[in-house]
């Protein structure tokens, strides 16, 4: 067949492709299998009489979910749109936030069987080229059969697979991802999932939410600090209680000691076993609540609250203070959803340490956690890199936006200035009545 091809006829397909068709992607295919694959994947195949080969014109269209409010990361104030399962929709959602030529989208395909489309998005000249290269290299080297969710890619390219702390962030909201891209991070959009990865990820990012930047900075700072405290509570509260009750009684005020002792009196298990029972019961309830349909989930929480809270105490299986401790632990954990899983694991470690040697153990656990955090790196950026110099403006507290004139030092390279001018908002510039500039 190939020998029959005439130069003039070949030109006809080229002319059609380049000058007639208004499709975003059309390609000249010469072989039958190529044309068949195109046809099967929803493209239109254009065959012209007399021409060898044909055109595969991109005309894929399928049912897709509309852009809707995401289930996680809901906000009171701020955009409510969320990513969908469609790659193109997702990239266009980000593109709509950042209308700048510097925003690069690099298309890749991953997965031998699934041939899933993956897009890297970053701001050229702001993102660290080394990070971009690393991510591109790691994604490009991926030799996997399938990619069904960003989690697949995350597991293959992350720096610390055995750490309880994640070194790659993810979000379901275009505004969050756009903000991260603007700070110099790289987003990895994967076809078929509404979750978008962002890297590098730093520890303080877990404590930041979209709304921090939409609400007033004082209030955001307060909530930010609260989140740090809540994280400490969710990791350490049961351990501290165990240490207090089994080792360091002298740290409890006398009258509180009496009520602790009264509550513990008659409960059959040591404090550690009691705490383990309660923590596991809570994890079971939580897991049950997550997977079940919503109406059933409510029933679960009622049963959980009644049986765990009240019946366990009056039956004398666990003491009342332990129920309070576990309750505050559980609730505090929800303040920092990004670290919820890390918190659950660390909590048990700390409990074991406390049961082992009391506060000494808890202190060891805490130091161990700090050391571990300090050794972590995400794509060459220290995990605690935020807590350094100017970057601290957006960690423990959230400084006013006008004071954050620089992009994060640890992440952005090249164009690191957000805004040139510092605008003191206390004395806004108002021209005189005559319109003269002072």
């Amino acid at each position, binding site marked *: 067949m190939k020998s029959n091809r005439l130069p003039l006829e070949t030109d006809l397909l080229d002319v059609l492709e380049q000058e007639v068709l208004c499709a975003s992607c059309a390609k000249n295919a010469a072989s039958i299998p190529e044309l068949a694959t195109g046809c099967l994947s929803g493209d239109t195949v254009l065959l012209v009489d007399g021409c060898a080969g044909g055109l595969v014109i991109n005309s894929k269209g399928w049912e897709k979910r509309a852009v809707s409010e995401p289930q996680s990361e809901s906000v009171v104030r701020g955009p409510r749109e969320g990513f969908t399962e469609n790659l193109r929709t997702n990239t266009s959602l980000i593109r709509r936030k950042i209308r700048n030529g510097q925003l690069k989208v690099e298309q890749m395909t991953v997965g031998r069987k699934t041939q899933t489309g993956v897009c890297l998005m970053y701001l050229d000249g702001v993102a660290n080229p080394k990070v971009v290269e690393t991510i591109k290299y790691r994604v490009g080297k991926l030799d996997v059969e399938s990619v069904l969710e960003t989690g697949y890619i995350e597991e293959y390219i992350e720096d610390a697979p*055995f750490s309880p702390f994640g070194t790659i962030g993810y979000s379901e909201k275009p505004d969050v991802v756009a903000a991260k891209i603007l700070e110099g991070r790289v987003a990895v959009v994967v076809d078929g999932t509404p979750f978008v990865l962002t890297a590098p990820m730093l520890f303080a990012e877990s404590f930041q939410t979209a709304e921090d930047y939409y609400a007033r900075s004082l209030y955001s700072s307060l909530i930010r600090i609260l989140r740090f405290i809540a994280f400490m509570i969710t990791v350490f509260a049961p351990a501290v209680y165990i240490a207090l*009750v*089994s*080792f360091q*009684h*002298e740290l409890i005020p*006398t*009258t509180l*000691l*009496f*009520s*602790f*002792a*009264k*509550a*513990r*009196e*008659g*409960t059959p298990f*040591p*404090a550690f076993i009691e705490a383990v029972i309660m923590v596991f019961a809570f994890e079971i309830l939580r897991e049950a609540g997550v997977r079940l349909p919503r109406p059933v989930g409510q029933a679960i929480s009622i049963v959980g609250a009644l049986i765990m809270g009240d019946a366990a*105490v*009056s039956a004398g299986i666990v003491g*009342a203070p332990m129920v309070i401790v576990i309750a505050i632990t559980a609730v505090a954990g929800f303040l920092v959803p990004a670290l919820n899983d890390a918190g659950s694991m660390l909590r048990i470690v700390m409990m*074991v340490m406390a*049961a*082992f*040697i*009391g506060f000494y153990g808890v202190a060891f656990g805490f130091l161990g956690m700090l050391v571990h955090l300090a050794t972590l790196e995400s794509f060459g950026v220290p995990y605690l890199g935020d807590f350094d110099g100017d970057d601290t403006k957006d960690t423990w507290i959230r400084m006013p936006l006008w004071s954050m004139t620089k992009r994060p030092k640890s992440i952005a390279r090249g164009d690191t200035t957000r805004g040139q001018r510092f605008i003191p908002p206390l004395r806004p510039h108002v021209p005189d009545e005559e319109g003269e500039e002072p």
Partner: protein
Amino acid sequence: MHAHLKRMVTIFLLLSMLIVFLTGCWDSRTIEDQLILTGIALDVADDPGKISVTAQAANIQQGKAGSGETGGEGSNESIVMKATGDSLTACLTELDRDSSQKLLFHHNQIRLFGIELAEQGIKKHLDLIMRDQKARLEVPIAIVDGRGEEALTAKLSEMPLSGLFLGNNFEAQSAISPQYRVRLIDFVQRLLDGTAAPVIPIIKVTGEDDKQEIKMAGMAVFHDDQMIGRLTNEETVGYILSFGNVKKYNIVVSDGQNQAGLHIATLDCKREVTLRQDGGIQVSLTITSVVSVSELHGFKEMKPPELLKYLENLAQEEIKNEITDCFSVAQTLDADIFGFCTMVSKKYPKQWNEMKERWSEVFSDIDLSIQVKVRIPETGQIVQSLEMEENMK
């Protein structure tokens, strides 16, 4: 990577095994196995040379938290145990042996000594308390007018645990002046100063079987570790004032017909010693105080400005008298409760060596001069009393 993983797994397994097999948790003391002591009292035993120890502990079985039942009548909120032995160690061992729970000393609120034991000397019984890290030096001590155990068995209506009551009471008193609460560490410090006389508050249990009360009954004055005398509650006031650092204390002044209650907001005292030509010493106390009027009786013919002046003078006299009275009691007891000797030894270390030998002679001859400066900036919510208003009309 594989070697690395293998090592990680090995370390993890090793650690888990260590935790499982090595956790004798030998230091673990679960709370419910502890007998939380709230007070301990030392007395002389009937057998000569022995002491008896009474320990008061909270009864956590009673009125369980959450179950809603309160003590009710005849409730045993406290457990009182008694042991007799040659030494404190022997007594505590006996107490521990006879109880199903371990004694927990950390939360002990008070240490009491019977007056008889105090007169014999308490030095030798302090060693264990000071040596043992579980027993804190910061716990207040007191002398019981009678036997020490009385205070621990007392059934108070205010608080079922008398140990807790005493601890809280001394805490509250120490807000007025730190001198009101004598902790073991304060006592020992005085004891080590040698010539200074330690002072410990005295408490007294009064009332019948069910309605008992514990009252403050002045201060016990010690010579070395033996109680040699006591200050009454009135004489104690002078002692307290002479140290300064008094806050929120009330005094009553009177000029014969008229009476005024005054509230000392703050009172500070600067103490100074100087050597006299004849080898004695001169002590000058400079007291500055801010006082407010809390009650007026009489003063009918006075106008507010002159009244305040008058009251200031009365208050100055009163403070001066209190201290002088207390000082003369101290001189008759030959006990340097004010700690003047420490001031001398610090300021004149050379002369002190020689003076130490004849300190009691020097002390009885001390020249005490007291300057009091009282300021009354306000009269409370009203200026004149109703009686004064009547007189004006």
